């Protein structure tokens, strides 16, 4: 794991100095993060990287994970889809299962820290245990158009927190508590984002039997309907009419996502007649993801809904040209025609990919701008800063705070 000093070469000494300055103001406060999975998915990834750095800055931070059975995670997957606006019915049984697991976790977890930071809806009911301490709820999901019945149910818990945190302005809701805008981040020194040699990259391509004879279009994502892998295959087919290329669809599963296998089967079915489509179900292997991104000519993120879409920042950090849907937090990461290309349809995405494949200088400039934008706004050091400020804000209600 890198040390905080290791980031100086990337963001500069003064940024790290500022982190130390504000971290000092949290002296004596214990902070507990709670989420629903220790591995897989962006939340676990960020917490894994961030907590050691926070501790190095002398912020007393701990992380705990709630427990739940298959039924519970099936319900929370349904919640996830409903919050993204998918049509489905929320039943009384779903609510019972959710509340019953919530009660069990309330009994088994110690939430006596000064600040309890709860991530996503799965552990949301823990706030019933609040006892004079500060509680912050972090929503990593795109809730710009949530199922109203579910939102009303969750809202009664959300408003018991001191504040809520969302990833994009369009996710903000009418709430009686404060709402902060904090984008997630990537770690430039993690296995997923650190520099790799061309030998390392070639080795990974050989491992997955991906030849380097044609331009590579890549989408790295879980096999999830909201990431629209079938739509990406359609984009590829439209591009392939004019530019001979390969498509890589690569991703893993998360322990709280039971729907993934079904989506993967559909993707395999759609791809089976084309040898230039490489569908890679990968175990958690960040170096491999990194190598695939670095080997790509164009990276695509054609999500239908997106909590934030950190794979976009990962690609931009590698100075890759990116075509991505104009949803969730993606427009924060890409300014259209400046640091990437935004799209709203399969046809639009295909047009953008063709444009980039046919204009390598333009593609290079977009990638270069994108990298600087990520350096300024989406690295873990900015994220740590925002979290510390959010913790401090729980003790300061003013708009101008003299520390």
């Amino acid at each position, binding site marked *: 794991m890198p040390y905080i000093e290791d980031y100086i070469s990337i963001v*500069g*000494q*003064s*940024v790290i*100095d*500022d982190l130390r*300055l*504000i971290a000092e*103001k949290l002296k004596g406060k214990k902070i507990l993060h709670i989420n629903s999975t220790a591995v897989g998915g962006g939340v676990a990834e960020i917490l894994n990287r961030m907590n050691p750095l926070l501790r190095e800055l002398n912020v007393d931070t701990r992380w705990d994970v709630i427990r739940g059975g298959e039924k519970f995670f099936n319900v929370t997957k349904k919640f996830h889809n409903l919050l993204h606006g998918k049509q489905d019915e929320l039943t009384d049984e779903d609510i019972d299962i959710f509340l019953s697991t919530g009660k069990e976790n309330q009994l088994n977890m110690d939430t006596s820290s000064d600040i309890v930071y709860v991530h996503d809806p799965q552990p949301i009911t823990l706030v019933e245990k609040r006892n004079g301490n500060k509680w912050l709820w972090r929503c990593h999901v795109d809730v*710009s158009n949530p199922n109203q019945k579910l939102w009303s149910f969750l809202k009664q818990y959300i408003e018991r927190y001191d504040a809520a945190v*969302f990833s994009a*302005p*369009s996710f*903000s*809701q*009418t*709430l009686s508590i*404060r*709402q*902060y*805008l*904090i984008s997630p981040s990537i770690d430039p020194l993690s296995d997923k984002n650190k520099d790799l040699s061309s030998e390392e990259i070639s080795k990974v391509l050989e491992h997955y039997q991906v030849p380097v004879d044609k331009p590579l279009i890549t989408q790295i994502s879980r096999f999830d309907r909201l990431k629209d892998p079938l739509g990406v295959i359609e984009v590829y087919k439209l591009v392939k009419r004019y530019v001979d290329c390969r498509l890589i669809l690569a991703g893993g599963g998360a322990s709280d996502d039971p729907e993934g296998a079904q989506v993967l089967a559909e993707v395999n079915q759609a791809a089976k007649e084309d040898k230039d489509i490489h569908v890679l179900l990968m175990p958690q292997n960040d170096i491999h993801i990194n190598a695939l991104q670095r080997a790509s000519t164009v990276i695509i993120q054609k999500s239908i809904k997106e909590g934030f879409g950190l794979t976009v920042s990962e690609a931009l950090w590698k100075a890759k040209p990116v075509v991505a849907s*104009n*949803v969730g937090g993606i427009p924060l990461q890409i300014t259209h025609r400046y640091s990437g290309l935004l799209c709203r349809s399969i046809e639009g995405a295909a047009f953008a990919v063709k444009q980039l494949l046919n204009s390598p200088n333009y593609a290079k400039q977009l990638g270069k*701008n994108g990298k*600087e*934008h990520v*350096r*300024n*706004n989406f690295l873990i050091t900015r994220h740590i*800063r*925002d979290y510390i*400020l*959010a913790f*401090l*804000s729980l003790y300061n209600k*003013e*708009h*101008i*705070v*003299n*520390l």
Partner: protein
Amino acid sequence: MKKTKKTVKPFVFYTRLHLSQMTGLRAANISQLMELIKQVSGSCIYHHTHRFLQIHQYLSPEPPNDFAYWVNYVLGEDELGERLASIDTVQFSSIRSLREKIIQTIENYIENNPLAKLRFSRKDEEFHFIESISFIIPTKYSVTTLRDFSRTLKKVTIDSIYFHIFESRLRLEKQNNDFSAWIDDAFGNKILADSIARLDPYTHTLEDLRKKLINIVDNAIKK
């Protein structure tokens, strides 16, 4: 090396970090935008007139306020976008007066172009009102000479430069930027103080601004 004058009034560099707080308020057309601009907090006006400076801090200067960008690129009202973008923020010494100017600019435009009220944004492109919470913290840097001042300008974060040039003057309503005020007060060097005050910081990226400041101070030391 030429010795520089020492003052008994040290300049303490502060830094300013900000957290964005969402209001849940959103506008889909120009009339809603104007009504909400009238109602929201000063922190909100400040956020939307200064956010661009920080987000694109190393790159080319972007339209200096979110209102101009949204009106231009989402509603397609490029003339109003241009008028809002060219509001000379440096001429305003309070958020209150800046807000009035923005409202007046939109009102005048609507009066002359009533059809503008009929343009709506897509649902996913509404204007979301956000407030800026500022955390102001003293840094370890304190200087008593212009030479040390120049050296320290190279070391501090751009957040620190941002605070002393933009926030302190406009949001804390100090009338002048902190650097000019100190140079005038501590050294009586009105020429140097004025040349910093005359900079239009809104047309520079923050890194360019840092370079420019160092250059102006270094040249003054040589004289």
